[in-house]
């Protein structure tokens, strides 16, 4: 390109910027479309596998899951999975915490008794609500305390103490568990 530009020409001031920007946008869109076509299936498979692994973790006896999410009659339920061999049910539910949703995966047996609880990654404050999922002893104890419960769960009762200093996060987790139990009851009525 020449160094001496005719700045008053219509081409330089109006047409050229439009052409350059359009060309850049077209090229970048093509790049993005290509990358997306490569990564999208991998991302989808990874998400599915992660979810399956989480369900398998809370209900190891199951040999496969039937997705019944569409039939869930209760709000706050993200996923409902019924073990194909009748080992029990898995629910993914959310409660509203301090820093957004607090997702929980629980498994119940055919009678609605909690077999296992797994708190999933959330955005609660570090050192408080984050103790639910970062491997802290309090979070593990909280999950253990919920085992064997059925019907509904109350915080600060029956050994369910929650996380010290993280009342909002604990309440969110309990409400997610209750939503799951309620959903189980409704679907097995």
């Amino acid at each position, binding site marked *: *390109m020449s160094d001496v530009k005719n700045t008053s020409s219509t081409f330089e001031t109006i047409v050229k910027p439009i052409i350059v*920007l359009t060309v*850049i946008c077209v090229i*970048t869109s093509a790049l993005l479309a290509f*990358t997306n076509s490569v990564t999208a299936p991998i*991302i989808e498979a990874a998400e599915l596998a992660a979810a399956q692994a989480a369900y398998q973790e809370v209900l190891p006896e199951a040999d496969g899951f039937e997705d019944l999410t569409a039939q869930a009659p209760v709000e706050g339920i993200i996923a409902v999975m019924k073990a194909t061999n009748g080992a029990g049910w898995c629910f993914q539910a959310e409660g509203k915490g301090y820093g957004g949703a607090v997702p929980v995966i629980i498994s119940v047996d055919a009678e609605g008794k909690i077999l296992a609880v797994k708190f999933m*990654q959330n955005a609660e404050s570090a050192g*408080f609500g984050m103790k639910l999922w970062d491997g802290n002893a309090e979070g593990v104890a909280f999950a253990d305390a919920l085992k064997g419960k059925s019907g509904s769960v109350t915080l600060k009762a029956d050994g369910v103490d929650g996380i010290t200093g993280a009342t909002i996060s604990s309440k969110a987790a309990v409400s997610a568990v209750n939503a799951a139990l309620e959903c189980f009851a409704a679907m097995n009525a």
Partner: protein
Amino acid sequence: MAEKSKMSIVTNGLIKENPVLRLVLGTCPTLAVTTAVSNALGMGAAATVVLICSNIVISALRKVIPDKVHLPCYITIIATFVTLVQMVVKAFLPALDTALGVYLPLIVVNCIILGRAEMFACKNTVVDSALDGVGMGIGFTLALVGMSSMREIIGNGSWLGITIVPESIDRFTLMTSAPGGFFSFGVLMALVVWYETKTNNKIDRKIGCAKKEEN
């Protein structure tokens, strides 16, 4: 512009013109992701990749892009690289994606990248711009790691996930929330300024975009 040694372009970004501590760019992701060292490393690496790529492309196109639309062009290029990085991270490093959360796509509006495009890439050769990207990226990562080390050790008693402070000592958890971010940011910034005065190495700050300097 005077010929600068290639090495000085790289080292420039480490302390002298550290993007976070001296240019004070990109403070929002800095404060947000420095709760853990692992997040800081991930964020630093992702931003460095984007920074190098966008610097290269923008300096290669610096004669083609008309002044009138230079900002939309830069943003389009930067956003493309960020989205590419995001898709790749999502596909191959899903754990890092969850850790960085919304701050990964927000690299688009990280001032360091647009700042370097405006202050450096738009008036330097491709090689120099790539080196500038490397230096700035390392400087950004260093600052993040410094801040997150302070916050993770004091706030959580660990470094890179390994517990180093015995459980018997109470954690000062405020360090992992927002106030701790500002505190460690200030401490590090003061350290760099102190180092600069100590070594009698005060530098004139370059201000603004290419056009002003050329006139």
